[in-house]
C-alpha cells in the first residue's frame, strides 16, 4: 500500500471508527487532521515526475491513481479545509439547539466526504469517479439535512438526477470504447454521436453537482440552512468534485471533440453565473444566504476559465488561474462560513442588519470574514487575486474582452455585497453582544482566511505545482505496453 492509498484509506477507517465510537468520535479529528495534512503535504512536495504511483496492475485493467497538479492542490486544500473545519466543530458542535444527536452524525459524514473527495481528485477512471461522486453526494445531502430537511430533499432529488445522467454517459462510453480510463480515452475518442451524447450527459450531470448557473437552484437553500461547519464543507469541497471531473473530461479525455462552440457555452454559463450569483447575493438580507449565493458566483469563474484554457496558445496561465481559483475559493469560503456562523451566534438575528457591534465584540472573527472577503473579491494580496489576475491576463491576451469584463465586474459586485456585510459589523449595536470566541473556534476561520491571503505570496510555486502532468503539457504518461 502506497501513501497515496492512505489518502483515501485513512478517512474511510476514520469513518468506520466514527460510526462505532458514536459520541466519542469527535476526538478522532485531533489525530486525522495532522495525519492527513502531513500526507497531503507529502503528496504536494513529491517530485513532478512521480505523478503516477500506483500501478501494480497494468492498464487497462488496473486502477490508476494519479497525482497531477490539480489533484495535489485540491487534496492539500481539502486536508486544510476539513482539518480546520473539524477542529472548529470540535469546540463548536454543529447542532441545532435541542438536536444534540446531530453532532454524532456529523463526524462519519465528514470522513465519508473526505475519502470520496480525495479518491475523486486522484482517480482517472470514469467509473471510479462515479463512485466517488456518489460518496460525496451522499455525505453532502446528509450534511445539508442537518439544517433543513426540505432543502436537503430537493438537493437529493437533483443530485440523483445528476448521478443518473453521469452514469448513463459512462455506460455509453463503455459500450462504445470498452474502457473507462481517461488517459486511454484520450487516444481513442472520436466525435461520433454516441461519444457526443455520452459527453453531453456526463457534463449535464456534473454541472448539476457543481451548481453552475442555471442548475444552481438547489445550492443556496441547502448551503444557507446547514450548520456553519457543514455549509463550509458543502461550499468548499462538495461542489468542487463535479468541477474537477469536468476538467478531466473536457481537457484530458475528450479535448479532441470538445469544439470551441461548446467551450463558449460553458464559458458563457460561467459568466452568467458570476453576474447572476453576485446580483442575487447583493439582494439577500440574511448573511448566510449572501455567502451561499457568493458560491454560485465563484463557481462561475471556474467555468468561465474553460474557453480561456482551451483558447490559449500557452494555457499555463489560464490553467493555473482556474485551478487556483478553485483552491482559493475552498479556503476563503470555508473561512467565511465558519466566521459567519460565529457572528450569527452572537448577533441579534440572522439578517445582515443584525450584525452591528460585532467589529468591537469579535474583532478576530470579523477579521477572518474580512480577509476571506478580500480573497473572494479578488483584491491583492490573496489567492483570489492571483487566480483572477492570471485569468484576466489570459482573457486580455486572447482578446476575450467579454470575459475580461465579467472578471472585472464580478470583482466589483463582490466588493459591493461583501463590504456591505463588513460595514454592517462596524455599525453600533442596539443591544450589548455576547461574543462567541476563543481557542480553536476563532482560530480555524482565521487560519483558513490567512492561508487564502498567504496564497497570494506564493504564486510562482503554486503555478508550477498546478502545471504538473497537466494535459496541455503533452502526453506525460508513457503508456505501458499492452500485456500479451
Amino acid at each position: 500500500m502506497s501513501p497515496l492509498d492512505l489518502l483515501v484509506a485513512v478517512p474511510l477507517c476514520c469513518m468506520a471508527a466514527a460510526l462505532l465510537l458514536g459520541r466519542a468520535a469527535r476526538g478522532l479529528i485531533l489525530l486525522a487532521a495532522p495525519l492527513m495534512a502531513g500526507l497531503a503535504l507529502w503528496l504536494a512536495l513529491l517530485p513532478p515526475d512521480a505523478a503516477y504511483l500506483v500501478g501494480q496492475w497494468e492498464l487497462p485493467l488496473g486502477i490508476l491513481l494519479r497525482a497531477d497538479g490539480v489533484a495535489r492542490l485540491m487534496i492539500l486544500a481539502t486536508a486544510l479545509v476539513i482539518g480546520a473545519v473539524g477542529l472548529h466543530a470540535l469546540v463548536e458542535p454543529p447542532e441545532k439547539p435541542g438536536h444534540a444527536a446531530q453532532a454524532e452524525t456529523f463526524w462519519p459524514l465528514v470522513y465519508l466526504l473526505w475519502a470520496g473527495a480525495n479518491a475523486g481528485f486522484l482517480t482517472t477512471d470514469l467509473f471510479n469517479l462515479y463512485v466517488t461522486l456518489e460518496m460525496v453526494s451522499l455525505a453532502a445531502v446528509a450534511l445539508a439535512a442537518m439544517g433543513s430537511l426540505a432543502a436537503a430533499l430537493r438537493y437529493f432529488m437533483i443530485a440523483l438526477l445528476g448521478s443518473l445522467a453521469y452514469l448513463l454517459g459512462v455506460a455509453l462510453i463503455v459500450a462504445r470504447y470498452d474502457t473507462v480510463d481517461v488517459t486511454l480515452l484520450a487516444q481513442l475518442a472520436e466525435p461520433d454521436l454516441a461519444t457526443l451524447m455520452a459527453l453531453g450527459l456526463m457534463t449535464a450531470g456534473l454541472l448539476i453537482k457543481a451548481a453552475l448557473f442555471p442548475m444552481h437552484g438547489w445550492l443556496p437553500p441547502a448551503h444557507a440552512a446547514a450548520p456553519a461547519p457543514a455549509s463550509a464543507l458543502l461550499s468548499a469541497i462538495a461542489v468542487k468534485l463535479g468541477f474537477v471531473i469536468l476538467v478531466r473530461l473536457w481537457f484530458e479525455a475528450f479535448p479532441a471533440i470538445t469544439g470551441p462552440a461548446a467551450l463558449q457555452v460553458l464559458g458563457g454559463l460561467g459568466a452568467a453565473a458570476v453576474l447572476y450569483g453576485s446580483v442575487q447575493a447583493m439582494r439577500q438580507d440574511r448573511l448566510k444566504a449572501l455567502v451561499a449565493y457568493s458560491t454560485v458566483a465563484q463557481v462561475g469563474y471556474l467555468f468561465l476559465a474553460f474557453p480561456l484554457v482551451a483558447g490559449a496558445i500557452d494555457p499555463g496561465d489560464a490553467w493555473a488561474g482556474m485551478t487556483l481559483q478553485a483552491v482559493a475559493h475552498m479556503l476563503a469560503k470555508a473561512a467565511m462560513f465558519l466566521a459567519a456562523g460565529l457572528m450569527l451566534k452572537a448577533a441579534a438575528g440572522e439578517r445582515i442588519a443584525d450584525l452591528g457591534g460585532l467589529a468591537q465584540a469579535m474583532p478576530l472573527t470579523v477579521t477572518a470574514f474580512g480577509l476571506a472577503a478580500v480573497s473572494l473579491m479578488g483584491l491583492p494580496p490573496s489567492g483570489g487575486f492571483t487566480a483572477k489576475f492570471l485569468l484576466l491576463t489570459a482573457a486580455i491576451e486572447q482578446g476575450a474582452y467579454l470575459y475580461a469584463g465579467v472578471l472585472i465586474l464580478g470583482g466589483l459586485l463582490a466588493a459591493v455585497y461583501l463590504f456591505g456585510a463588513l460595514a454592517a459589523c462596524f455599525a453600533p449595536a442596539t443591544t450589548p453582544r455576547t461574543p462567541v470566541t476563543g481557542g480553536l473556534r476563532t482560530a480555524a476561520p482565521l487560519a483558513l482566511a490567512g492561508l487564502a491571503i498567504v496564497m497570494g505570496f506564493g504564486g510562482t510555486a503554486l503555478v508550477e505545482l498546478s502545471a504538473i502532468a497537466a494535459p496541455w503539457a503533452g502526453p506525460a504518461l508513457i503508456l505501458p505496453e499492452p500485456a500479451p
Partner: protein
Amino acid sequence: MMTFAPLALILLPLAAAVVSFALPERLSAWRNAANLGVACVKLVVVTYLLMQAEAGLVFEWRYEFLPGHDFVLRLDPLALLFVTLSVFLWLLTTIYAIAYFDRGPNLPRFFGFFNLCVLAATGVAMSGTAITFFLFYELLTLATWPLVAHKGDEKSLRAGRIYLTYTLAGSVAFLAGILWLQSLVGPIEFATPPDLAGVPALTLTLIFILCIGGLGVKAAIFPFHGWLPEAMAAPAPVSALLHAVAVVKAGAFGIVRMIYDVYGIGTVAELGLGVPLAALASVTILYGSVRALMQSDLKKRLAYSTVSQVSYIVLGASLIGPFAVIGGLVHLVHQGIMKITLFMCAGALANRMGIKAIADLDGAGRQMPVTMAAFSVGALGMIGMPPVAGFISKWYLGIGALQSDAAWVVAVLAGSSLLNAAYFLPLLYRAWLLPPPADRPAIRELATTRDRMLILPAALTALVSLGAGIFASLPFSPLGWATLIAEGGYLR
C-alpha cells in the same frame, strides 16, 4: 544587507501593525511605544538611504511572485522623495494621533490599519513594476477603509461606502489599463520603460485614459473628487494622513510614474496627451478653490483645498518641461507638509475648543496662539506667499509653464492664488483680529489641560514648511531633491 533595505521599509510597519492589532487596550503604552519606535527606526533607515542615494546607489529587491511577473521594490530618487515624506510625516502623525485619541474605543484596530496604510504608501513609492504598484495601491484602498469608517456612525459608514465605490472603480480601470498594456509590450518595469513604438496611437491613448482616470480617482481630479470631502467624516489624524501623504499622493505619484516612467515624455508629447491633462488639472485647481470658498465647515474647506492643491502636482507633471516637473515634484512634498499642518491644527481646534465651523474661529488665535500660528504659516504657504514652501512650487510651475509655451497656466496659477487668498485670509482675520465669544474657555483654563503633543507636531511641520522655502537652495531640501530627480532621469 542593503538589498534588503526596501524590504525592511515594508516589514517595519508590518511589525508595528501586528503589534497594534495584537496588544489589548490596557497595554496601550506598549502599543504607543512600538508605533513610535518603529517610526523612528524607519526615519533613521531612510536618512541613511538618502545619503546612499545621493551618492548614486539604487537599492532593489525583487522576487518572482508569478511566472513572468516580478515583485520589485526599488529605491530610486523619486521613490525616496515620497518615502521620506511619508516616513517623516508618519512619525509626526503618530505622535499626534496618540495625543488626539488618548484612550478611545477600538484603538488597536485604528493603529493596526494606520500602520498598514504606512506600509502601503511606502510600497507605492518603492514599486518598481506596474503590477507591484497596483498591489500596494489596492492595499492602500483596503487599509484606509476601516480608518474612514472608524467612528462607525451613519456618516462615517456612508463616507466609507462612497470612498470604496470611487476608489475600487478607479483601481479596476487602472488594472484594466496596465493589463492591456502588458498584453502588448510585456511586463512594465519603471526602471526600463517599455518600447511603445509598435502600439497604435489610439490604443495608447485609450490605455493612458484608463490608467490616468483610475489613478485620478485617488488624486481627486475633477470629476472623480467626490469621495474626498465625504471622507472628512473620519477622525482628524486620518484626514491629515489621507490628504497629505497617503491616498491622494499615491494617485498623484502614480500619474507621475505613468507619464515619465511608463510612457515617457516623448510619447506623451507625441500623442498630444499632456495638454488635455494639464487642462483637466487646471479645471480641478480652479473648481476645488471655488468649492472651498463656498464651505462653511473648516474641515470641508480644507478638503476642497486639497482637491485643488493636489492637481498642482498633476499639472507640473503634464506640462513636460524641466521647471514644471520640478515644481510638480516639489509640490508633492510641500503640499504634504503644509496640508498636514492645517489638518492637525483643525483637529486640535475641534478637540480642544469644539471649533468646527469657520464662524467659530473668532479669536482662536488668542486662546491657542501656537496652533493658530502654525495654521497661519500653512495657510500662507497654500496661498503661495514667500518665504513659505508653497511659493517655491508655484514659482517653478509658473516658469515651467512659460518654458512649455503654456502661458495660460500662469493665469490659472494667479487665479488660483487669488482664490486661495480669498478662502484662507478670512480665517486668519477671524482668528487673530476678532474677539473670542464670551462662552469660550480662557487661555488659562485651556493651559491646565494642555497636551503639548497635540500642538507640537503641527508647529514642527509649520517650521519645516518655512524651512523648505527659506533653505530651498540646499541639496537636501525638497527642491534640491526634486531637481536631482529631474536631472537624473526626466530631462533625458
